[in-house]
């Protein structure tokens, strides 16, 4: 269930309370997020929409522990991340967050399997265990046969699949997808969205996604609109999403 009220589900996987983010540009404060509240349960698939500059990516960065809020609190699976040190936050990200970016951001000098293996290098898994995990992740995204291909030898859609495999290989608590189809044609975008839906449906992943594309957003359980730093609207688009999630 997704809620944008301060009195939302206290047992939600992700709880955001009174989130503020202010940037300074040329000495002038620019408030991007203003007292934002959000609850997301395990297995939810949430899409954030909004015009450019509305704070979608800022919200995603805050939820992923890549940035720190000016005020407010974010709690994930009981871990309050807003007061974590930089080092602890890095460790937390490695355990809990899988990132998927618009431009895929694969390391061009590593093969698909080596790219997918990167998060596992931070674990205590043996080489053979890492190999097994990588093969499983590539199987999920349907790229078993491309394990030894370099990113330049893959299409955009395939690169994004590798990025998704990299995001899920360490079995994170939730996935953050920033415009995952933004650089793809419609057919590839559909394939990627089908894959993300499958991750939610079959693998019980929690996914938070930023997109400009209403067609893509419509495939999420819940669509939240960010305008002027506030979640002003939420639309339930799928029967799978719990009722009463939108404010």
């Amino acid at each position: 269930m997704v809620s944008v009220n301060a009195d939302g589900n206290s047992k939600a996987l992700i709880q955001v309370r009174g989130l503020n983010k202010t940037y300074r540009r040329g000495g002038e404060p620019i408030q991007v997020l203003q007292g934002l509240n959000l609850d997301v349960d395990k297995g939810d698939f949430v899409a954030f929409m909004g015009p450019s500059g509305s704070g979608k990516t800022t919200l995603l960065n805050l939820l992923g522990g890549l940035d720190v809020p000016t005020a407010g609190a974010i709690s994930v699976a009981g871990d309050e991340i807003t007061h974590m040190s930089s080092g602890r936050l890095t460790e937390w990200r490695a355990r809990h967050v899988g990132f998927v970016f618009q431009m895929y951001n694969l390391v061009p000098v590593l093969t698909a399997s080596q790219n997918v293996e990167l998060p596992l290098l931070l674990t205590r898994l043996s080489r053979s265990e890492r190999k097994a995990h990588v093969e499983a992740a590539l199987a999920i995204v349907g790229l078993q046969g491309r394990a030894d291909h370099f990113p330049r030898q893959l299409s955009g859609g395939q690169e994004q699949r590798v990025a998704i495999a990299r995001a899920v290989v360490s079995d994170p608590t939730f996935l953050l997808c920033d415009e995952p189809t933004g650089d793809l044609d419609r057919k590839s975008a559909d394939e990627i969205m089908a894959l993300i839906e499958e991750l939610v449906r079959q693998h019980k992943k929690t996914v938070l996604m930023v997109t400009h594309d209403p067609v893509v957003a419509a495939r999420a359980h819940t669509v939240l609109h960010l305008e002027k730093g506030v979640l002003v609207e939420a639309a339930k688009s799928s029967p799978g999403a719990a009722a009463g999630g939108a404010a």
Partner: protein
Amino acid sequence: MKFSRLIWANLTRKKVRLLLTLGSFAVALFLFAFLAVVRDAFSRGGGIASANRLVTINRVSIIQSLPLSYRDKIQNIPGVQSVTHDNWFGAVYQDEKNFFPQFVIDPENQRKVYSELVVPDDQWGNFLKDRQGAIAGDSTAKRFGWKIGDRIPLKATAYGGGAWEFNLDGIYHGTRPGDDETQFWFQWDYFEERVPQSFKGQAGWYTVRLNSPDDALRVAKTIDADFANSPYETKTDTESAFAENWVKQFGNIELLILSIGSVVFFTLLLVTGNTMAISVRERTGELAILKAIGFRDGSVLFFVLAEALAIALVGGFVGLGLALLAIPILGQSMSGMLPPLVISKTMLATALGFALLVGMCSGLLPGIGAMRLRVVDALRRI
């Protein structure tokens, strides 16, 4: 190490740049090794000089001679074990460029004073019996392809000039690394027989072997005091001080070589530092992703430093390998013009240490920059 594949992949992503950077290190290390062995060659006299030897020369200059009669007086000073005397003989073998040092020696005492320069007893015996006999250092013998029994003609440029002929009776070897094996020795009696009257009974310098290095200062003072206010006043120094003064005649070689070496390494630092900075800047997005997925700041710094150190290490090995191959050849071609060029393990270790230091410094600033990179800012720039 599980990160080695990532480091290797990053190292080899721009192969031409990698080769050029390795080449910079290799050339710098080769140059460093060459300068270091030249410096060592010039300063070795002081370094390997025996602690229990003194050298006595004419107080005016080494060009001025000393009477042979001084030998017995020096020998009788308490603490003196043995004394030998020598003369410089500046002759030419076939061509002026074939330079090598030739000394007229005192056969009776030569081996007592210079015990580290070894001649087999049978060859020394033949030398003693042969008035025109000569002993050559192994390096010089090899340089000219001389064998025992060869007739060696030299053209004297002093002592009345003329052609002098010698029989090569023996070849000496040094027992320590860096011992000079370029000298050519011949009999004092043959020299006395051939030179004009004005040179007879004169020695270029005396070398004194002491019972103990502790006697050095006292014996040196005694020698100089004994001959003070005579027509041939003396100046006695330890062998190392004598060698250092000799090198100083050529100018401040140490400063010159240190200056060139410093410039080489500073330039190398700028080149590799710039290369590493460009390499890191090109990968800002990738580094940001690594940090986003959980790589710590220290890991990112480690990757950059590991790359810089790997380049320094491989480039250093290549440069020093080239030096090991080329310096003996260069040394052979410059034999006579320079003292023997010896590559020591200490020098190799120092050179590699410098290479690693430059590698570390060149990677440090870009590495710290990568470490401090804010993921959010870097992702915004992609």
